[in-house]
């Protein structure tokens, strides 16, 4: 156990935000979960009691007849904002006094940093470079993430859960978002920051970064396993596999949707459902491809003269 190495990684100034992000996220997930749980209990209670549902104020916080429904922004909101501004300023001041911003040697194109890491918030994408070619990991994927985020309000047809925390009313959408945000984004950043060492090799926390370590990894392409040799056959094979994934996967999504999310499916138009299918399958393709690589050393699935996937 190389504690010094671990400390060096955790205390590198630019890694401190990620060290801070973990407990922050844990705290806010807890805060959200607690409210979602309370709301879900209230919903369950009200759904079982129609008379109460008509009279209840529908919130978990107490409310009595005669209480003001609204409060003045001045001072009830402004004092919170003022306090928040002061607290943030104090945190920032203390942080800035105790920890210096990193400054390395002058830029030198002839001396490559090893590992050369992107800023921490892009490390998830850099981690994806292990499993995908740069045009996917660096261009297509970020674009898909942005577009995917932007279409969320237009493909989520579930009218429930607007303006309050809940889990039971939005299991699918919240589950998908948690998967995308926590597993595919934050966890990848954590791996990229704390696990990846020289040569972008995997070093467990506490393992010494060995700059001379070599890994003799023989990666194969999926067509090789099936003994396909000609370029044309490889291209056709890959197209069939990728196309088949989207077709079969799409069918599976449909089959699951109409069974377990019948109401949501009924509300969706064809375009809404197709986009959901495509984005969902593309998102799931990331861990699948990672699994192929980690478990069976498979590099490419689809090989063409112009691009490889």
């Amino acid at each position, binding site marked *: 156990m190389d504690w010094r190495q671990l400390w060096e990684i955790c205390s590198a100034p630019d890694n401190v935000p990620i060290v801070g992000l973990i407990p922050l996220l844990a705290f806010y997930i807890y805060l959200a979960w607690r409210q979602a749980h309370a709301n879900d209990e209230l919903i369950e209670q009200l759904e079982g009691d129609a008379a109460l549902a008509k009279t209840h104020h529908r919130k978990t916080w107490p409310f009595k007849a005669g209480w003001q429904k609204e409060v*003045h922004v001045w001072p009830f909101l402004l004092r919170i904002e003022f306090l928040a501004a002061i607290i943030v300023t104090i945190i920032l001041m203390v942080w800035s006094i105790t920890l210096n911003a990193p400054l390395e040697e002058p830029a030198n194109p002839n001396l490559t940093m090893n590992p050369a890491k992107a800023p921490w918030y892009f490390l998830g994408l850099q981690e994806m470079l292990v499993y995908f070619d740069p045009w996917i990991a660096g261009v297509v994927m970020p674009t898909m993430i942005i577009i995917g*985020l932007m279409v969320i*309000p237009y493909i989520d047809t579930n009218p429930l859960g607007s303006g*309050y925390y809940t889990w039971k009313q939005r299991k699918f959408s919240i589950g998908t978002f948690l998967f995308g945000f926590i597993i595919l984004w934050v966890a990848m950043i954590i791996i990229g920051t704390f696990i990846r060492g020289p040569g972008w090799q995997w070093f467990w926390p506490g393992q010494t970064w060995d700059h001379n370590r070599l890994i003799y990894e023989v990666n194969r392409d999926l067509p090789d396993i099936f003994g396909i040799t000609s370029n044309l056959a490889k291209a056709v094979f890959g197209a069939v596999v990728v196309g088949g994934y989207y077709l079969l996967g799409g069918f599976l999504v449909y089959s699951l949707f109409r069974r377990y999310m019948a109401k949501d499916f009924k509300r969706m138009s064809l375009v809404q459902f197709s986009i959901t299918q495509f984005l969902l399958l593309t998102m799931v393709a990331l861990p699948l491809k990672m699994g192929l690589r980690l478990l069976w050393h498979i590099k490419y699935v689809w090989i063409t003269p112009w691009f490889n996937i």
Partner: protein
Amino acid sequence: MADENNPNGKNGKVGLVDRVKEDIQAMRVDFPSKAKEQIEGLKDPTKTQVYTSIFRHKHDDTPRNRALGVLSNVFLHLHPAKINRDAVRYSYTWGMGGITFFLFIILTYTGVLLMFYYHPSKVQAFRDVLYLEHDVPFGKILRNMHRWAAHLMVIGVWLHMFRVFLTGSYKKPREFNWNIGVLLLVFTLLLSFTGYLLPDDQLGFWAVTVGTNMARATPLLGHEGPFGSMLGMTPYNDVRFGLLGGSIVDANALLRSYIWHCIGIPIVASILMIVHFWRVRKDGGISGPGPVMLAAEADKPRRGPKAAGE
């Protein structure tokens, strides 16, 4: 002679000395009384013209004045006068949107101060940072604050988006504002990324090299991307060249980064922020905490073409 009785002297005109005497006498009365008035007036400064010209309403603790305090102030009028009693609950909002905006203001402030000491050129940039760290009074804390506020802002934006998602606040009628928010997320990351290169050290240089190398692989538009070379892309005319102003991260990249960081993106982000805040109000204020909705109520179409057709 009639002239001798004339109080105005021989020629019927007042002498200069007499006038002065008269004025002094008048002054002895006027000034103390005015001074007294002035002192009386200062006891209640809210009645002075200067004060009333700045503050257009009284400050007695009445509901009307509380509302006016918000509505008649250019910085506060983003807020409504009154909000739902539960909307102030921190457990619901997490305050991350506001904190992000506050950090943006801190970043603008510290950033402008940093610009006084920084030249975006290969010869000067790194030395300027050294100078800032070792010679400029408070230079080190200035740079630290800018750096850490930037990181905090990225975290703030993520947590804000996370909260908005978990509370379903992107749902009707806030779909468009969610989109503005996604764009703001992208611009926040780009702001941070363009700033990364500016110290011109190994960390920034290689981070930006790694980052922009991806642009090489852009499909169609990058020289290493799918179909790029078929469309005539080379390292000297592809999208990466456009980003860096060259085929490597060098002086032009530093200048471009600087201009995007200090002028281009802040302007675009500010405009988007204006739209974002405006739409928060126009879409009905913050989304909640709203009353919970029961599944049985969700299936009743309330508005829209479907309801009209039924």
